[in-house]
């Protein structure tokens, strides 16, 4: 064999191995599904599993991997029985299959190394499932010799016959000879068929298998021609336990044996075969003996790996390129893709640099060229980006098995559901997600999902669910890992954190629930008392968070105690080429990834301070009912800006810090009028500003910049190690004009500014509630007082100006009118019974007060025989038609019936009274002394 041939055969072997790996990957989910469905497993599923194992077995044969083929064969037998429905899908069966599967996986991984070839345990388990009645027809005892000269019914001349002698050493054929028609024999030989002598036993080959002779003769006719048979002769003869046939067929001996269901020892070639005897022997002899150095797996791998310099197709590190049509795929080297990616990025940059040239020399046809270039470049970039995308299921798929095994190990019942399996993520991102997601799942199983009996106690289904949902949103990948387990108790976290000295005492009661839960992310935190071998100790959520943040993503936890937990991972889709908005602050420019931008606002000059509020210690902006914090990029990054005094040309440092500085509009106008340079990019600080509204998970915040430019596609280069601890920057990039600018990291900026999204939300919610309460008017503060005995009245507190205690002795009576002196004035007093059907005011009560209602002259007061209480109520006041006009309705409070006064009506009544009194007073005064 030439070295060329050897190489191509090696490559073929590698291809077979790759296909076996694919098959294995597709097999596991099927087996797991079978376990879950049990008796209800669909035929399709079983067929699929069968075909897959069949393929694996076949492939193993090709690379001469005997052990794998053998194990595959055993598994295939089990699946065959399942297919035929002579075996049911039980947990034991699936266990045995999974065990076999695991071994296969191990075997394949070990190709080329010292292998775990032994599969006795797995084989035993599989055969335990089956009854030992498959394979092979046992050789039986010898038969008595009989002459076999055929007495044939066709009378032909003697030379028309040929004597055939069996070649095999099977005892049943000892000394036998067969006469066959020459013509038919020659015909068969010409057609190059095999000629076999077969012995069929009446008992074991026919009766035991419920066959009759006719059936087996038919079968023989189906697969070839019968050149000789002594069935007629041997029937009925007691000393004969079977009959002979000579048949011609294209089938090899093993197949013949299989079809006729007769042991191989009962069949053999005869001494007349077609011309090429050598070829015959070669073609028919057992393949297992053959030595095929090129296709023997272990040796091949070693030699090809050790001698190969840079073989065109690398082995294990292969990528699957998937296209739109399912099933059309290609294997490509990862390095090649990386190379292509880099070049695509450089192409984008080169185009960006070329653009200004083309634009400045723009003519009709040039623009077309530029457009075309744009289109092609963008397309290439997108396509290359696509290449690196892998569906999430490639990582998540394996969790089904992981969850099953882990849950079983600790006697919990957990099932795993994946939503959004074909959401695609950049390959490297997916790789880096493996550890964090695995850890999250471990947590769910370990701490989240409760034991079955506990779940039942809580009226939850016995089997817990871990769900991973993946989806795209806003240019980012969202992965939500949720469970319906016990949730996280914020208090528990807080106490643990406090124990470990991670929280100072003065913060203990100032933390919101969310802040308490976020303590989980602190390094060195764990709540498990025992070190379970699943979750380990101290490897905690801080590592998960670091991993996610290294992908420029972030992580959030939502939990409800007793109901479950949800961990939300948000990661940018692409790491390299990012469409970004170029903004300017001061003299510097920055890039903000477009995916983070929700919208851009423009705050007019002078209006800034009116639109920006202060809430919970942060400056906030209100947008369509939604409130969010706002920061100034300049302030954040410490960019000094200079204001040029338009008259003197002197540059002054701008000192204003807060956005809503207390400058009035008119001053702003004054200043702006002073400026004469319209094109001055260094805008005046009290002029308008742009607010870039940024998204971060579910939160928004605004970033004030001076100006913004285009959206450009930038290739983000990582920060150099000297500055990569600066969280506000995600990287650097090169603009089309050759400038190097920083790319902002939205998460980093939020953290750096210590934006307290929660506090703001809480405060806002509180304010809204209060407003609502006021607006609805359902909550009223009422002051309840008595007039006559056991009569209660109420007036809304906000309609009361003040209350004054009254000493009855101070009342001056003029006729029926009562006055008291108050601050040098005379105040007219009325009592309730003068307006409403009420008892006379009890002036002998202990504490008498005068209630001064608002909106009525300050010279009027209501006498009460006592103030009972001030109550806050949102109780519905039943409007009663039986109520007199001034009463809004009646309220029952603490067993008292309170008549709530309608302030406006009441005021009217008082006014009327006053007018009357005036008249009366006048007349009185005339007659008074």
């Amino acid at each position: 064999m030439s070295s060329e041939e050897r190489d191509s055969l090696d490559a073929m072997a590698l291809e077979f191995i790759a296909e076996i790996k694919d098959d294995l990957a597709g097999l596991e989910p099927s087996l797991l599904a079978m376990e879950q469905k049990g008796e209800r497993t669909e035929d399709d599923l079983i067929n699929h599993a069968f075909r897959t194992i069949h393929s694996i077995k076949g492939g193993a044969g090709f690379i001469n991997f005997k052990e794998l083929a053998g194990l595959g064969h055993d598994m295939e037998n089990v699946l065959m029985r399942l297919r035929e429905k002579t075996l049911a899908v039980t947990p034991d069966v699936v266990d045995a299959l999974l065990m076999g599967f695991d071994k296969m996986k191990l075997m394949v991984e070990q190709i080329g190394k010292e292998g775990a070839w032994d599969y006795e345990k797995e084989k035993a388990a599989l055969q335990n499932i089956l009854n030992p009645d498959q394979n092979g027809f046992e050789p039986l005892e010898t038969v008595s010799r009989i002459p076999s000269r055929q007495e044939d019914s066709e009378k032909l001349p003697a030379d028309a016959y040929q004597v055939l002698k069996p070649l095999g050493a099977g005892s049943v054929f000892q000394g036998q000879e067969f006469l066959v028609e020459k013509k038919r024999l020659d015909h068969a030989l010409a057609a190059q068929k095999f000629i076999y002598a077969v012995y069929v036993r009446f008992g074991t080959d026919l009766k035991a298998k419920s066959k009759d002779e006719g059936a087996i003769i038919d079968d023989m006719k189906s697969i070839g021609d019968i050149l000789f048979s002594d069935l007629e002769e041997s029937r009925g003869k007691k000393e004969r336990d079977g009959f002979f046939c000579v048949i011609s067929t294209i089938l090899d001996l093993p197949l013949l044996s299989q079809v006729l269901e007769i042991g191989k020892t009962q069949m053999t070639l005869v001494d007349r075969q077609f011309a090429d005897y050598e070829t015959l022997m070669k073609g028919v002899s057992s393949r297992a003996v053959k030595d095929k150095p090129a296709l023997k797996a272990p040796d091949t791998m070693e030699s090809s790996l050790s001698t190969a310099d840079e073989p065109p197709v690398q082995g294990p590190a292969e990528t699957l390129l998937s296209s739109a049509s399912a099933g059309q795929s290609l294997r490509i080297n990862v390095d090649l893709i990386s190379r292509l990616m880099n070049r695509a990025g450089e192409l984008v940059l080169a185009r960006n640099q070329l653009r200004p040239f083309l634009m400045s020399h723009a003519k009709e046809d040039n623009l077309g060229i530029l457009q075309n270039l744009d289109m092609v470049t963008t397309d290439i970039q997108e396509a290359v980006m696509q290449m690196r995308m892998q569906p999430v299921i490639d990582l998540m798929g394996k969790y089904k098995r992981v969850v099953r095994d882990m849950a079983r190990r600790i006697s919990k019942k957990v099932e795993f559901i994946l939503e959004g399996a074909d959401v695609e993520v950049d390959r490297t991102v997916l790789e880096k997600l493996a550890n964090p997601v695995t850890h999250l799942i471990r947590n769910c199983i370990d701490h989240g999902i409760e034991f079955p009996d506990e779940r039942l106690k809580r009226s939850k289904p016995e089997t817990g669910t871990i769900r991973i949902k993946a989806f795209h949103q806003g240019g980012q990948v969202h992965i939500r890992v949720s469970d319906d387990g016990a949730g996280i108790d914020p208090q528990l976290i807080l106490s643990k954190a406090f124990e470990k000295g991670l929280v100072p005492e003065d913060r203990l009661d100032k933390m919101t629930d969310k802040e308490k839960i976020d303590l989980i992310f602190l390094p060195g935190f764990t709540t498990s008392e025992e070190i379970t071998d699943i979750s380990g100790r101290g490897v905690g959520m801080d590592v998960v968070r670091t991993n996610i943040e290294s992908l420029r993503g972030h992580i959030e936890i939502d939990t409800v105690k007793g109901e479950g937990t949800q961990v939300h991972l948000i990661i940018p889709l692409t790491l390299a080429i990012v469409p970004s908005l170029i903004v300017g602050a001061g003299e510097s420019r920055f890039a903000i990834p477009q995916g983070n931008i929700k919208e851009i606002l423009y705050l007019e000059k002078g209006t800034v301070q009116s639109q920006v509020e202060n809430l919970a210690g942060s400056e906030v902006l209100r947008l369509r009912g939604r409130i969010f914090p706002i920061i100034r990029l300049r302030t954040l990054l410490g960019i000094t800006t200079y204001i040029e005094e338009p008259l003197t040309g002197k540059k002054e440092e701008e000192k204003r810090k807060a956005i809503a500085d207390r400058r009035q509009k008119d001053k702003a106008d004054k200043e702006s009028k002073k400026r004469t340079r319209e094109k001055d990019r260094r805008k005046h600080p009290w002029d308008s500003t742009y607010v870039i509204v940024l998204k971060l998970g579910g939160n928004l915040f605004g970033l004030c910049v001076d100006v913004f430019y285009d959206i450009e596609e930038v290739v983000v280069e990582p920060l150099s190690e000297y500055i990569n601890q600066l969280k506000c920057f995600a990287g650097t990039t090169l603009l089309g004009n050759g400038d190097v600018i920083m790319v902002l990291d939205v998460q980093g900026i939020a953290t750096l500014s210590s934006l307290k999204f929660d506090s703001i939300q809480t405060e806002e919610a509180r304010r809204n509630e209060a407003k609502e309460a006021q607006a609805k008017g359902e909550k009223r503060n009422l002051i309840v007082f008595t007039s006559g005995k056991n009569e209660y009245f109420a007036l809304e507190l906000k309609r009361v100006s003040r209350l004054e205690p009254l000493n009855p002795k101070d009342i001056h009576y003029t006729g029926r009118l009562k006055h008291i002196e108050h601050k040098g004035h005379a105040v007219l007093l009325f009592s309730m019974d003068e307006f409403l059907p009420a008892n006379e005011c009890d002036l002998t009560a202990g504490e008498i007060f005068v209630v001064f209602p608002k909106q009525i002259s300050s010279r009027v007061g209501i006498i009460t025989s006592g103030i009972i209480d001030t109550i806050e109520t949102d109780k519905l006041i039943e409007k009663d038609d039986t109520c007199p006009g001034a009463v809004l309705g009646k309220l029952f409070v603490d067993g008292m019936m309170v008549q709530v006064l309608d302030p406006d009506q009441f005021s009217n009544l008082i006014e009327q009274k006053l007018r009357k009194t005036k008249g009366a007073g006048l007349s009185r005064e005339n007659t008074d002394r």
Partner: protein
Amino acid sequence: MKILIVDDKASIRSAMKTILVRLGLSDITEAVDGEDAWYRINEAAKKGRGHVFDLIVSDMEMPGMTGLELLRAVRTRPEVQKTPFIMATTVTARQIILETMRLGVQAYIIKPFDADMVEFKLKQAGIL
């Protein structure tokens, strides 16, 4: 001689093709499953006698249309029913073999096969 190789595994098709090419048979078309094969067979038949396949080598177990079903289809369509057909498979189930033989094949090759075996079988079938 136009040969059609049918197998859902690229590795098998590749192996068979290599062997056939070495035996001097280079006009080889590949089909990825039964339906694909049947489609190609029909298309070739439509074009006329000069374009039909002279030999079909097929796997048995394939998703969708199996080799047996393909064989049946071939044997029932007048224009192509005499096409030499070789089954190359690991299936040794009795019923399948019987069915296949009843429909008529020129060779029944058991996988794994190697160059010698294929050569022999092609000779036996009268193709070489």
